[in-house]
């Protein structure tokens, strides 16, 4: 038996660390890693509530989120590689061609 707030606190901690990483990091691969942290936080919530209510939809959606995360990382890294090949940098604040 596990108290639900413990699960939710863990998830909140991971999510806010992920937000910090997305905002503070400059390297695009590290930004993608921080996005993974946030997706994991959401998954923890889904699994925790699924076990609380004895309702398996949460776990099914956690699996879907994992699959979407895998697709997102594949596409994201391909885009990052393309940017690196064209511009010799993957710093997200130097990739500003579309800004203004």
């Amino acid at each position, binding site marked *: *038996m*596990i*108290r*639900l707030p413990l699960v939710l606190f863990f998830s909140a901690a991971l999510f806010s660390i992920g937000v910090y990483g997305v905002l*503070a990091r400059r390297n695009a691969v590290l930004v993608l890693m921080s996005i993974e*942290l946030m997706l994991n936080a959401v998954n923890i919530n889904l699994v*925790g509530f699924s076990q609380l209510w004895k309702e398996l939809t949460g776990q099914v959606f956690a699996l879907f989120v994992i699959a979407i995360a*895998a697709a997102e990382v*594949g596409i994201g*890294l391909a885009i990052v590689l393309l940017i690196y090949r064209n511009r010799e940098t993957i710093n997200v604040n130097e990739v500003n061609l579309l800004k203004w």
Partner: protein
Amino acid sequence: MSAQEYAFVVLALVGTIAAVRVVTARNVVRAALYLVVTLASVGACYLVLAAEFVGWVQILIYVGAIVILFLFGLMLTKAPIGREALDNQSRGLAALVGIAILAGLVFLIQKAFTWSDPKVELAQGTSGAVGESIFRSYVLPFEAVSFVLLAALIGAIVLSRKDEPS
């Protein structure tokens, strides 16, 4: 506190500390290896929560596949080492936003749930039921997800292929 709670708290602490190291490490490869620790402890948390199928999928997909993808991405884009090269100037603002979100979430959680009332009763052996639920109620989303994965795979190949000099 029960034994499961102790296990969960220890795993959550390990995962949180490793996640902090992921976003503060000065070496990108080290950040990826700390990400392995975080993802593995999240997977172990799923196991403690008795969601064994999601736990093993987490360990197989995240630790086995996604981190390898990240390491390949890091190897193919040579990243500099050092805090100034990896972080941008607005680190303090980012920390402020992160702490504000954490404080807001903690406030809402402890407001919405009393500390002792909702307890996650651990259902035993949910794998079979999860499979039944996927293939009985969620067949269409499942097929859509597999199509998304196929599209992402082809898209990644198309994006990262070198253009033929024609």
